[in-house]
């Protein structure tokens, strides 16, 4: 059902592009730091698009000047969770924003099985439709 190639989950920035290289990630983080946003590393193994709050990897990183520290943390997270989704978010704390300004995936499982269409018969003859990730059939931590 997914229209993108290889069932790749598409959320956040750059998700229709091939995976970013470390240099490209560094460049993006540099942009976030230049704007004074706090960069965080988050992970999850539930690819559902409505799964908004991912687990945070380590502490949020405030007051950093250079992307090298964050890249170190990303690589640490990739080592710890090689088969999870890992994303980088940049949080803008200025009043009025107070929300993530950037978010992009930096690590994904080797095989992404995609989503199943779930039909629900409702009262009368109406049908409800939703999607469910195949991976979520298994318990958390054993999905990929």
């Amino acid at each position: 059902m997914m229209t993108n190639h290889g069932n790749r989950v598409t959320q956040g920035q750059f998700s229709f592009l091939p995976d970013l290289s470390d240099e490209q990630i560094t460049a993006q983080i540099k942009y976030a730091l230049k704007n004074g946003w706090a960069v965080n590393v988050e992970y999850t193994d539930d690819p559902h698009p409505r799964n908004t709050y991912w687990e945070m990897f380590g502490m949020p990183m405030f007051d950093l000047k250079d992307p090298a520290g964050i890249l170190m943390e990303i690589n640490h997270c990739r080592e710890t969770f090689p088969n999870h989704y890992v994303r980088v978010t940049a949080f803008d704390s200025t009043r009025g924003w107070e929300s993530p300004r950037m978010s992009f995936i930096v690590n994904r499982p080797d095989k992404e099985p995609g989503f199943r269409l779930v039909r629900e018969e409702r009262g009368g003859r109406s049908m409800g439709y939703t999607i469910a990730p195949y991976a979520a059939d298994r318990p958390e931590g054993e999905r990929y």
Partner: protein
Amino acid sequence: MGKSDDAVAAIVSRHAQEDGVVDLEAEFRASNIQEVLDTLDRELIGLMPIKTRIREIAALLLVERLRKQFALTSETPTLHMCFTGNPGTGKTTVAMRMGEILKRLGYVREGHLVTVTRDDLVGQYIGHTAPKTKEVIKKAMGGVLFIDEAYYLYKPENERDYGAESIEILLQIMENHRDDLVVILAGYKDKMDQFFMSNPGMRSRIAHHLDFPDYSADELMAITKLMLADQSYRLSPEAERALAEYVPLRMALPHFANARSIRNALDRARLRHANRLFAARSQALTRSDLMTIEAADIRASRVFREGTPDGVPAAVGLVTGQGDLR
């Protein structure tokens, strides 16, 4: 035309690359290093061994940059440093400059200085130290991590102390992230020597051990003038003579902390200066009155009268030699 010419040009340029000439002078001028070195000379009095070493490092990095143009590979030089010396000899001041110098030379990307002590690195319970140390390291990346009083990190008398864990993480980062940050340890000479004795890994990973010499009386006078000029004060000729007498007297006293003692003496002279002006407040004051420190402001110091530093009750100072440590 066309292809063959291009081919010839390519060969010529490759030859130039293989055995070409490169303009060290132009590269030197382009890097603005001279400007940094000049400010260093102007604003830091004395400290010859330190300045020489900074010059050497600058030269090394410049040559390294040229070598890169010829694709001569060599490992990134390690620039982790250890500053030892008595109190008030300018260790922190030089570390602050180091960030800027290394940035000009293109060795670090941001050139900011993160100053930490044991408290910022070592945690209070199991599992607290590693995240704490890593957080500091991440903040310092792209710049200089300055660990003041570094010998406190390791407490040999307590084998359960978490300092060792912090040192381990630091060692690993110093080895694997050489391009990302420069670590400078600072502390008093004898204690740092002890620290390195018990942490040989640390010693071998630090390439530059710089020992800060004590200042001579003349150098201290020059420093005084620089400090006063920064704060828009000046000495009257008599005050200058008084200070020239004061400095050797103070140097002979216990707990002399080089430039820091002098700064404190100046602060107290400013206090007396303000007090004197206040006492004579019925008279009109000129701009020069507000700026000039007179001999009386300096001669009122207890160093002249009783031979003890200011800020210590005379009796205590004489008996125990404690007091004005700073």
